[in-house]
Structure formats: structure tokens, C-alpha cells
């Protein structure tokens, strides 16, 4: 495994945000959802995101709840592939760093090296693979590090300290703190576990620690950020893309407004120093 790896775009951007005393906002959108899905990405950026996760649809997304599953299915039925998403992004000049979020078989089938190359060619800085935990990740992590891809790792409420320590050492970009025991989706209240796992993860790493899974409102985001360096919001965003009204432009505007609401709430609660 590589020793010193220079911080990538995601870590640099999120640290810079943290250094101002503000909190990081990282939305998730499903890649290829609708022909002009890049409008959704543009909306996320306009709304004030610090980085964005692009989901590559997978047939069996075991960490995802109904909303993201549905978005997956729609995109897959439309013929979206990892390559089509990468191709779409190649000509998109993103002012914020991007990470893909998909399942390991997509990378395994393509081959680690080719997967890393695909991300680089598309201008994607990071990779998030929720179903390959660090004990199975050695090969992929070396390939990612060698190719300058920031491989995000997860800290779960069930992780003992020893695993949190190794997560902190091996993760790049940020540490994804799983807010609750469960799959992606909004919940009516923020789980107590969200703040607790953020606190525990931060004891073991200086990387930014972002809470994801179960954040369903700007208020919950603010609550989680009492300890966390930021939040990841997925289902609440994708719901607007799947269930939102009318045209793509209208859905994109609705997403922009949503991101802006989170941005404002976070910035009001945690203004720059």
C-alpha cells in the first residue's frame, strides 16, 4: 500500500471549507437519470454544493432504499452504463470535485486499472464503493492511490475503534460516517447514532468526516454538523428528480432550491469564522 499520498481535489476542497468554520454539503444524484441529467448536476452546483456524488446505477444496490433503487432502475432501463456517464461528464467543466458512488462489481468487472482510468478521463476525483469494506480493498486502494483517485471509506455505528482507526488511515477524500443502522433514505428524525458515529470517527482521523444515510431535512443536517464536518444528502435530492413535476428544467430548479435551502441552513448555523 502506498505511504504518503498527496491530498486530492475532494479532500482539499472539503478541508478548505472546514478551515473557514463552515460545513460541507455533498449531494448525491443518479448518473444518467434523464437525457439531460447534467442539468441536475449544474443545479446541485448552483445550489451551493461543495462536492457531488454521481451514482452509477447497479442492478442490486443493497445499501440503497426505494428512492435510489427506483432512480437506478429508470436509468438502467434507459440504457445508462458506466461509460455513458463518464462520456457525458468528459465535456462538463465542474467547478466542484466529483466522486462516483456505485457497487464494487462495476469496478471489478471493468478491472481496477480501467475503472480508475475511466474516472480520471471523466474528471472524477473520487470513488465510493459501499459494498467493499477495507479488508477486501487492498488491491483497489493501491490502484486508486496510484492513479490519484480518492477512495472514500465508511465508518459505521457498528464499527469498533480498531476498524475506525484503520478507516482513518486508509480513506482518502473524506470519511463517510453512516448515520444510522440502515439503508439510504430520509427519516423523520435524525438518529442519535449520527452524531455519535461522527464523533467517534473524528477521534481517529483528521480527514473531513461527513454524515450520510438518513439525513432528510436542513434541520437534521445542522444537527449532525454539531459534530460532523458536513453531510451527504441523497434520497431527498433524488426524490425530486424522480417524482418532481414536469420538465427536466423544472426538476433541476427544484433541486437547486433544495440544495440552496440546505446551504443556507448550514451557513446560518455555522457562519465563516
Amino acid at each position, binding site marked *: 500500500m502506498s505511504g504518503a499520498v498527496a491530498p486530492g481535489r475532494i479532500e482539499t476542497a472539503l478541508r478548505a471549507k472546514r478551515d473557514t468554520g463552515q460545513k460541507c454539503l455533498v449531494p448525491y444524484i443518479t448518473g444518467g437519470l434523464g437525457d439531460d441529467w447534467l442539468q441536475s448536476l449544474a443545479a446541485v452546483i448552483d445550489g451551493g454544493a461543495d462536492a457531488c456524488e454521481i451514482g452509477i446505477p447497479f*442492478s*442490486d444496490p*443493497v445499501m440503497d432504499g426505494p428512492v435510489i433503487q427506483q432512480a437506478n432502475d429508470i436509468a438502467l432501463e434507459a440504457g445508462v452504463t458506466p461509460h455513458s456517464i463518464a462520456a457525458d461528464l468528459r465535456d462538463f467543466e465542474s467547478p466542484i470535485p466529483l466522486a462516483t458512488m456505485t457497487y464494487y462489481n*462495476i469496478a471489478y468487472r471493468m478491472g481496477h486499472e480501467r475503472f480508475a482510468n475511466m474516472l480520471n478521463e471523466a474528471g472524477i476525483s473520487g470513488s465510493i464503493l459501499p459494498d467493499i469494506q477495507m479488508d477486501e480493498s487492498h488491491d483497489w486502494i493501491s490502484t486508486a492511490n496510484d492513479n490519484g483517485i480518492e477512495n472514500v471509506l465508511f465508518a459505521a455505528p457498528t464499527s469498533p475503534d480498531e476498524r475506525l482507526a484503520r478507516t482513518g488511515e486508509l480513506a482518502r477524500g473524506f470519511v463517510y460516517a453512516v448515520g444510522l443502522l440502515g439503508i439510504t433514505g430520509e427519516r423523520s428524525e435524525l438518529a442519535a447514532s449520527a452524531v455519535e458515529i461522527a464523533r467517534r470517527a473524528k477521534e481517529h482521523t483528521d480527514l473531513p468526516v461527513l454524515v450520510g444515510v438518513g439525513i432528510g431535512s436542513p434541520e437534521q443536517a445542522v444537527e449532525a454538523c454539531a459534530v460532523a464536518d458536513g453531510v451527504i444528502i441523497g434520497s431527498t435530492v433524488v426524490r425530486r428528480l424522480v417524482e418532481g413535476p414536469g420538465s427536466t428544467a423544472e426538476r433541476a430548479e427544484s433541486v437547486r432550491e433544495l440544495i440552496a435551502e440546505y446551504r443556507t441552513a448550514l451557513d446560518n448555523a455555522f457562519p465563516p469564522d
Partner: protein
Amino acid sequence: MAMTDPGPAGRFGEFGGRFVPETLVPACIELEHAFADAWADQGFRDELNRLQRDYTGRPNPLTDCPRFSEEFGFTMVMKREDLNHTGSHKINNVLGQALLAKRMGKTRLVAETGAGQHGVATATAAALLGMSCMVYMGEVDMKRQELNVFRMKLLGAEVVPALSGSRTLKDAVNEAMRDWVATVEDSHYCLGSVMGPHPYPFMVRELHRVIGTEAREQCLERHGRHPDVVTACVGGGSNAAGIFSGFVDTDAELVGIEPAGGAAVGDGVPGVVHGMLSYLKQDEFGQVLEAESISAGLDYPGVGPEHSHLAAIGRARYEQVTDAEVIEAFQVLPRTEGIIPALECAHALAWMIRAKDELAGKLVLMNLSGRGDKDVTQMMGILEL
């Protein structure tokens, strides 16, 4: 040496492993240690053996099939897992896991099911041990196997339809895993085959080893030798793993029979889904393909990692049969031996009938892993009698 302990990484050659979300890793490690501890504990073994004897009805017999044998020109004997309580081999695994779950302080069992046999077995064990039980079953399978859905409910289990994807076994596994991610503290995922993350493929094989151990002794006693060929159907591959484990160190040829519409070993390439690296039917991008088989119990695009390993090292071979061959074979055993096989087992029968020239004069042991009662309604729609 094949079919031994895969070690802490849970690898059978290159296959297996533990490809799960971080949330589940500690639970898998806890389960690995709890199983090792229980399996080494004579008290646990005694309790399981007592249940296998007094509740399941083990040892079940080895049955000679003289009329079938005469018709096809080889000596066929069957291990009668169909005679177990609940009607299939699934109870062997479930009783072991339920006892283990209880020992670990879990109060709830979660399971996936295809044909419903594993779901019925899990619901049964939950009732026996006073645990609550939730079974995920593909919506398509719930229609095909109405009888088993009713049985599970009668046994006090909640049956939840899996509505995503192909709405069959693969999707039921996804739903069970999603449940487990949320309930891991009080629930045990009672996985129904030799698949999933380590330690499941190893643990489930060990819990089914009794099939092979008994059959080996019975075959020696009856025929004075090991069989030339041992065959069983393979979906995830638990009944095959159980019977193969008793003969892997002999000269017997081991033949697993996959459905042509879900032949992971035959048509798949290595891939990762449901916690394991194994042969998997998938497209060029790594999307898992939907299996299509007349048998809900074999309707699965993957296979247990140990089978991938046995295939890769050439210790076992895997053949495919079509639904049409299965429908024909399903009718042979009732006519010749007075035994209605499960559609899953009809796959092994179909292969033997097709391979009768190759098998001529040989002693062939088949695992009759389940009885066909559950399939009668479905077959009534297909056969004109």
C-alpha cells in the same frame, strides 16, 4: 484439500470473501467466531443432533431405485432429504443457525426464500425456538409457491414480497440484506444457501455436511463401496455442498446440475454480489442478469463460492438442463418409484436421464433434496394428465 475450513478470509481458492457494507462487517466477524465456538462445543453439537434426530427425523434413509435403474441402465440410489420435517434439506442448516442465533442472544430471524422451502424451514425453527421471523420472497415466487407462503404464515412468520428487479430469489436476498443492515443488533440473517459473505458459505456447508456423512456410511453398508457418481441440483448450491462434502475425498465424480436459465458456473464469469466473489451471470458492465428457471429454488444468477472453486480446480463438474427436460424428468420418478420429487431435484434426474449412456453400469447417488408437493399446483398448470 477441498471442502475444509476456508480460513479467516473465507476464501475458497480465489472465490468467497466478505464483500459487505462496513455496517455488517462486525456482525459477520461475530458470527464467524460464534460459529467456531459453538461448533467446537459438544453441548451445542449434542443439542443440534438431538433436534436432528427427534424433530427433523434424521438419519433419513438411502433409497434404492430399482425400476428407475432398470429403465435407464445404471444403479441409482437417492439420499432422502425430502423426508425431513418441512420437506427438504433446508432444515439442517436452519436448525443449526437458529440455535446459534439464540446462543448469540438474537431474538429475530430474517431470511430470503425462493421456492419457499428455506422460508418454511426458517419459520419452523423460529416457532420451535420462540423467535420472531421475517421472510423476504420475490413477488413472482409468492405467486408460484402460494402453498409455502401460506405455510410460513401459519408458522407465525411475516412474509414480505420483494418487489424490485426480477422479483425472484436474487431480489429477496437484496431485501433480506437491507433488513439485516438495519436490524443487525437483534436479528440474525439466516441465509439459506452456501453463499453470501464469510462465514456463511462455510457454516452452511458444515451444517449440511450431515447429508454426505450419512450417505457415505449408508452407501458403504448397502453397496460395499463409494458411488461412482454423486449428483445434485445447484442453485446457490447448499444441498450439493452437503452431499459433495461426504465424497470429495473419494474417487467419486461430483456433478452439480444447474438450470439452463441460471447457470452461474456454466455461463457466468467471476463477479461480486451478495457478499461473495463467485461465478455470476452478468452483462459486460457488471450488471447482474436475471435468472429464468421453472424452479423458484434455482432461479438465481449466482452460486456459492465453493462450487466456483470446485469447478475451477476440476474437482466437480457442472452441467445444465432445460426447463423442458425438467418437466419430463419430474414425471419419471413418480411413475417408477412412487416418489414425487421437487422441481429442483428433477434437474438432477433430467441430467441422469440424458447422460444414461455415460452412466451405464455405474453406481450413481443423487441427493433428493426436497419433495414435490409444493410444486404440484404449478405443474397442474403445465401437465395434462
